[in-house]
């Protein structure tokens, strides 16, 4: 029987076996000193989570990959700000937010481009528990939400993604975004109101989808 590996197993084969768990602060110290093995270890441990967050934030896989690349290239300097007061994963998300602005615009442009060309939608990974119809419906909903997020200011988009999609607390999200808890909750409230209105408008008038997205 041929060996069938999963992407996670392939990733494990591509990289050296993970060493014993290293304190994040020690890892950050080595990273700041230019240790490439530390960078590799951080990438191996956190790139998947960061990639997921980037996709949820940007709604585009290619833009998400670019953002992940940019975060890790900038990390050897950015890591000097890491003091260990929060998990390294959250620190990486904060760096991603700092670099996200033009990636958000790039992802929105790519979505509009695909719509104009009427390119076929990319199906999500196969989920054994969902029927094809459920799978496609889920994909359509996710795409609609990504388009609706394109209409929001970046701050509201970030707030919604952190609190609603990533399901972080408002305090954690505020800490990542560098703002106050009350401001974060206000942004989430405004974002949800705008998104609901947008989705309801598209549900009522499906043809309006292509014209509304910026």
């Amino acid at each position: 029987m041929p060996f069938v590996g999963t992407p996670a197993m392939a990733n494990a084969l591509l990289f050296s076996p993970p060493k014993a768990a290293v304190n994040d602060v020690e890892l950050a110290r080595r990273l700041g000193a230019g240790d490439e093995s530390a960078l590799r270890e951080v990438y191996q441990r956190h790139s998947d989570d960061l990639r997921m967050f980037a996709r949820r934030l940007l709604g585009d896989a290619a833009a998400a990959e670019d953002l992940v690349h940019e975060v890790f290239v900038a990390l050897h300097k950015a890591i000097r700000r890491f003091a260990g007061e929060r998990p390294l994963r959250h620190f990486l998300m904060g760096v991603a937010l700092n670099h996200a602005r033009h990636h958000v615009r790039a992802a929105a442009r790519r979505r509009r481009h695909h719509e104009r060309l009427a390119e076929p939608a990319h199906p999500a990974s196969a989920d054994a528990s969902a029927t094809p119809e459920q799978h496609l419906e889920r994909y359509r909903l996710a795409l609609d939400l990504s388009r609706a997020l394109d209409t929001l200011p970046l701050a509201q988009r970030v707030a919604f993604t952190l609190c609603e999609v990533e399901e972080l607390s408002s305090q954690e999200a505020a800490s990542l975004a560098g703002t106050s808890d009350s401001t974060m909750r206000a942004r989430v409230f405004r974002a949800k109101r705008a998104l609901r209105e947008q989705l309801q408008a598209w549900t009522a008038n499906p043809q309006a989808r292509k014209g509304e997205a910026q």
Partner: protein
Amino acid sequence: MSAPPDPLAQATAALRAQAGGNADGPRSDADPAATWARVIADVRQRRRRGRIAMVAAMQLLLAGLGVAAWAGTTHRLPMWVAAGERWIASVSADMRSRAAKGPRPATSPLHKPIASAAAPAPSPESSVRLQTEAPAPPVVSRTGTPTRVAVVRQRPPRRDHNVVPEVTPAPEPAATVSPDDVYRRAHQAHFGERDYARALSYWDSYLKLGVQRFTPEARYNRAIALAHLGRFAEAAMQLQPFAEGDYGTYRQAEAQALLARLRRSTP
């Protein structure tokens, strides 16, 4: 009756599941290895660029040090430093005059008499009293001229200048001694040690070097040294050009006052 499903909540859940992939991890079309290769290539390239920039900066620094060393050995460095100090002084003077909104100083930037100069009487019966300023040595001067920081009242001379002291000629400046060094030594002997005989030798040595940066100051100080040594006639001859305005207003008033006193005290 259950509440209708919230479209936003459904869409959010769909986006979370869509981007999060399935239980196996990220979407299968992701290529973490390719992204890692790009990351490490870019990181190494940035480090190379940083090293190149540092090497270039070090080379520029070494070249600058080399030029400075060459300028020092060829005695160009004091000129450059003096030129820079004069420029700074002129800029500072402009700024001060603008701030005060007053008229510019009448004297030229090179000659800035701050206070009158008079030397104490070299002989007990002389009523001449001189107040000599104590200009700073050129090497520490910030204005490129012997800076006269304060008026220093001369103490009574420690020697009996009726007796002409033995003049210990100062050694001729070696070929490698710069004019500024000679001036500094003369200044130290004159204002620091009050050894006017030795100072006179140094002033003579400096003036023998030809026209230098502080030739007028050296001439004037030589006149003061002569007066201290009781050589009034020579001192008067040395002061005459200053009194007549040959050096503009530099030391003109002081020279005139000193000449008048020397003449009164000279039989």
